[in-house]
């Protein structure tokens, strides 16, 4: 009796503390994303204050009257020019961070990033081939997406050929597949016309949010959101997976289907980001670490936190890419430059937890 009474009070204290703090952190992260999106909307060549954005929002909802030319101008700047970028940064940042966190959990290794299975090499090869074939935007995107999935598929296939769902085989399979598609990419670059095609390929591979349209976002948003929700929902299974395959199975978790299901969702998301915006590195590797510092390692909370922080980081990187020089910098370069010091900072704070 005494034991269960103390146990109950103990549970109560844990529960109230953890749910309250999770709620607070969740709300804070959501507010952070909203603030970052607003800030990104107001940032650019044409000066726009938060007041202007609020005015436009209220006007489009019918609360305030706004002169027609003014409204049209704001509509053009906010909705047609800036919104696609802001939404793209939010979506791509969230997708990359969540797929990175998922890969890290599935591979039981905190230093894994979304290209462990060769996804990025495959997608890069696909896009380059698209440019070689004439460079139609849709063809490039579809080829990037399909070849990204194909590269991961080859990696998994090689792994299954030798060792089933074992992690080390997946890593080796991914290495082989990545190397294969990297070689194919070099071949395409070699064959490409050095004056017209090669520069396009090189620039595209550095990543950019400049060409993303609202309609593209429309069809990419659903699978990305679905992937985030699915991975968060499987979070406790991923926690069990971190303890080892035998242990997870003894806990009642269907290890192989969980692993391949999560790999499929994460691969789908990262291949989509490449087809939208090119290769954007580092986000998937280090954002999950920042998220772990904020909310802890449990995957059901880590996933939404990674999504939020990935979105914020990508918005900030895009803002820098747009405003740092006279010409827009490739966002892949900015994430890499920003990511390295951020990752060093995280390493110095969290080293003892991993090694």
């Amino acid at each position, binding site marked *: 009796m005494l034991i269960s009474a103390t146990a109950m009070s103990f*549970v109560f204290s844990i529960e109230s503390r953890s749910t309250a703090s999770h709620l607070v952190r969740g709300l804070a992260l959501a507010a952070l994303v909203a603030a970052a999106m607003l800030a990104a909307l107001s940032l650019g060549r044409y000066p726009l204050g938060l007041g202007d954005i609020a005015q436009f929002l209220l006007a489009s909802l019918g609360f305030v009257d706004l002169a027609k030319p003014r409204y049209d101008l704001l509509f053009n700047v906010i909705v047609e020019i800036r919104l696609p970028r802001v939404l793209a940064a939010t979506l791509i940042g969230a997708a990359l961070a969540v797929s990175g966190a998922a890969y890290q959990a599935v591979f039981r290794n905190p230093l894994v990033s979304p290209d462990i299975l060769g996804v990025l090499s495959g997608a890069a090869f696909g896009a380059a081939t698209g440019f070689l074939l004439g460079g139609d935007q849709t063809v490039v995107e579809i080829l990037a997406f399909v070849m990204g999935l194909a590269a991961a598929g080859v990696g998994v296939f090689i792994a299954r050929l030798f060792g089933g769902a074992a992690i080390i085989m997946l890593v080796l399979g991914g290495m082989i597949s990545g190397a294969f598609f990297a070689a194919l990419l070099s071949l395409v670059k070699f064959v490409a016309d050095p004056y017209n095609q090669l520069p396009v390929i090189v620039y595209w591979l550095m990543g950019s949010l400049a060409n993303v349209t609202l309609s593209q976002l429309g069809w990419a948003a659903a699978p990305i959101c679905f992937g985030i929700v699915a991975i968060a929902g499987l979070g406790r299974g991923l926690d069990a997976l971190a303890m080892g395959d035998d242990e997870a199975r003894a806990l009642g978790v269907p290890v192989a289907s969980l692993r391949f299901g999560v790999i499929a969702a994460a691969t789908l998301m990262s291949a989509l980001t490449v087809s939208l915006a090119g290769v954007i590195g580092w986000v998937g590797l280090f954002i999950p670490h920042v998220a772990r510092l904020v909310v802890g390692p449990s995957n059901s909370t880590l996933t939404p936190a990674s999504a939020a922080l990935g979105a914020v980081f990508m918005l900030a990187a895009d803002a820098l890419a747009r405003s740092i020089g006279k010409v827009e910098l490739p966002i892949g370069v900015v994430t890499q430059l920003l990511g390295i010091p951020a990752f060093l900072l995280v390493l110095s704070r969290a080293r003892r937890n991993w090694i």
Partner: protein
Amino acid sequence: MDLTGASALQLCDLRFAYRGRDVLRGVSVSLGYGEVVSLLGANGAGKSTLLRLALGLIGPSSGKVLLDGQPIERMSRREVARHIAYVPQTHVPPFPFKVFDVVMLGRLAERGLFRPPGPADRAVAAECLERLGVAHLARRAYTEISGGERQLTLIARALAQGARILIMDEPATGLDFGHQIRLLKRLRDLAADNYGILMSTHHPDHAAAVSTHVVLLKDGVVLSEGPPSLTITSEAILRLYGVRANVAPNAIRDAMAAGFEDDAPLATAPAGLCLDSGGVSRFSGSTGEN
């Protein structure tokens, strides 16, 4: 419901071949609720394989594993997990989960992957931590506590699973002497509460102290089995490990029976075995022949 003595887990005539080589041959083991069955054997004798077969993690080449009379291979992983829990050798996961969250993983078997745990599950987890005496660690990172505390956390997780059969892989390995004795005492208490425990161990003295039944494995076959006093003999130790040892059984059991308190100093150093050749004996209390 009194389940004492009922055969909970039966391993019938198991053979397991890996790459054309028999790892286990004709092995039968039976475990009842309230019993502790220990597997003894040298490295590579097939202990771990036997445990993995008992958990249904691998299937036998021939023979059967019956859980409460039902063949285990026809059950889903979740169904098995509600009856059999695995306490592995302790290891450190790559991410710093809280001790409480590690124990909560035990509730996956009950809730499934898709239903989030509720207050009742948290109450079970907290009670299991309390029961193993590690409730104060709940908010600590599992990666930062000691090996002995990790072992207790894993046992708490096994209890949180709701399983009545515990399969333990060398539960005392890596623990200091005090933690070993405390752990053995916990195992005996669990058996008294009608849990069935199947464990492998490298310590014949541990097997002697807590087991109701001992199985000696050598090169994949059962050398002998029975109550510890009849199976753990000098001759058996020689055949199993190739070393001569004088067996003074029950020494650890005596130490445990002597009202072992957590912080009380040990009056006598309990010694199960004293090696008289080829080994280093650090125990006093029983004498070798030299």
